[in-house]
């Protein structure tokens, strides 16, 4: 009942006072991802995420498809060939096979968390976004609120599930399972400030080496979700990887929406009143 009139979702670090820990997250550098999917498997092993079905998709080597209640890390495979006369002509192969491991962004302004009516979703002392599975009632609001299609309701279980950023491991001073398993350090775990700095360095290196298409995605605290807790270095446009180019936390516009609704409610009142007023004769 103490929480009854909580008007704001748990803010980090304010709500935690002394217990607040530095905000942590991921920098996923897709330029070194080899598509081994160790992250996917490590995540499932550690978190007991169920198997998702034996579906052959034909989408390159991606038989997972997307993040979901049963997939908290998803490795995308993108084939980008350039060929001449149907024969591999260019000396460098002229072909790219992009791989990228996607995950919950642990948004600074997390729509899923904002809209959760039960308080099941909360922000941890590490600044991450986690669902309490014993509270979630499966209302599904978070599913439609997430601008990245990350969180989803699990068939047969009814509750929403997503990456916890291995909250249990963080509490034990361990890095998340996916980062631990990643053999190339494509997934780098750490304090967000450090990661942002590292990412800038990496970007500069790549650009220096002539990889013009390298770009950071989600590292900017002024973007529509206030910056991602888990951000990326990509080699193509975000949508190529199935990511939204300009995600915005839906609750950014919530004040306006409430005001609009108030006006509409007023219109309703006026309309009813007018129905009687108009009938006076």
């Amino acid at each position, binding site marked *: 009942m103490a*929480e*009854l009139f909580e*008007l704001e*979702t748990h803010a980090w670090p304010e709500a935690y006072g002394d217990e607040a820990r530095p905000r942590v997250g991921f920098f996923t550098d897709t330029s070194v991802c080899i598509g081994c999917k160790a992250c996917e498997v490590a995540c499932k092993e550690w978190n007991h995420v169920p198997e998702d079905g034996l*579906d*052959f998709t034909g*989408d*390159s080597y*991606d038989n997972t498809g997307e993040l*979901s209640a049963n997939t908290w890390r998803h490795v*995308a495979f*993108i*084939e980008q060939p350039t060929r001449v006369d149907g024969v591999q002509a260019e000396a460098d192969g002229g072909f790219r096979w992009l791989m990228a491991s996607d995950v919950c962004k642990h948004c600074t302004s997390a*729509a899923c968390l*904002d*809209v*959760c*009516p039960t308080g099941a979703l909360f922000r941890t002392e590490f600044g991450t976004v986690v669902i309490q599975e014993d509270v*979630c*009632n499966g*209302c*599904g*609001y978070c*599913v*439609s*609120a*997430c*601008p990245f*299609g*990350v969180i*989803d309701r*699990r068939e047969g*279980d*009814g509750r929403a599930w997503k990456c916890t950023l291995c909250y249990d491991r963080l509490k034990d001073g361990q890095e998340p399972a996916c980062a631990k398993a990643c053999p190339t350090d494509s997934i780098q775990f750490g304090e967000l400030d450090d990661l942002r700095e590292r990412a800038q360095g990496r970007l500069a290196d790549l650009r220096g080496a002539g990889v013009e298409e390298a770009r950071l995605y989600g590292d900017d605290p002024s973007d529509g979700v206030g910056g991602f807790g888990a951000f990326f270095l990509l080699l*193509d446009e975000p*949508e*190529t*990887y*199935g990511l*939204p*180019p*300009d*995600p915005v936390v*839906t*609750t950014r*516009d919530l004040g306006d*929406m*409430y005001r*609009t*609704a*108030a006006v*509409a*409610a007023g*219109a*309703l009142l006026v*309309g*009813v009143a*007018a*129905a*009687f007023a108009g009938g006076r004769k």
Partner: protein
Amino acid sequence: MNRGRGEAAMVPRAEPASYYGRPVIKAPVWSAEVPWYLFAGGLAGASAVLGTAADAAGNHTLARRAWLLASAGVTASPPLLVSDLGRPERFLNMMRVFKVTSPMSVGSWILAASGGATTVATAHELFGWFGRLGPLAKLASTALGPALATYTGVLVADTAVPAWHEARRELPFVFAGSAMASAGAASLALTPRSHAAPARRLALAGAALELGAAEAMTHGLGRLGEVYRTGRAGRLARASRALTAVGAGLIGARGRRSRAIAVAGGAAVLAGSACQRWAVFEAGRASAADPKYTVGPQRERLATSD
């Protein structure tokens, strides 16, 4: 297989716009209960206001019917909402917190309060129960009614679903109009001609607002408006428009004279209102399913901001 086999000729070349045509966001997991709830909540909210107004105007014949409709609406709503939950037995977890950032939380409290108030108010109206509590409940129900009828516009708009979020400026008006139209139409159908004039006028005003706001919404969505013109949502939107217009036409032209026509017109407006909620619901799903509706508007936004 997530998609039909043999659909593509090879590992499709990565188009700049999507990852194998997969949606960027998740489709809403809500099912049929939700559009029906949108309808029921709207009917209840507007009916409560109508009831109070009728009371005030001394039109008790209309008031009784309006209160009955209001309590029918608030009675139907919770089961609809609960059964749509993944874990219905945890419905009460909604009441753990009150979160303004969550329209669903706000709405749960509105519905809970409105449900209680409306039930007491109706009992008072019909049987004179609850003594001095009755008028208070009516007051509360009247105050909550417009909120109950319009918050649902915020509920769906406060998502990443393009057809909903991008319609956030119009949706509350669409829902308000639709609620007024349904409350007016339903009361009209139930009320003898002699006492039905305010209901008729409410139905007409509501229909006008609903049609106007829906048009503005579709227009305002720009290219995204396509989801209201095509597919299931398109069919539902057209049906809604036709039913509402025809119903309103009947009511406006002949509703004063013929009870039968008033009933028919009322039924059409009511159906139009239901189709409206379904159209919005289906449009949301369609817009979530195709990545171009997510990526397109964002790209346009980026292009204009650069």
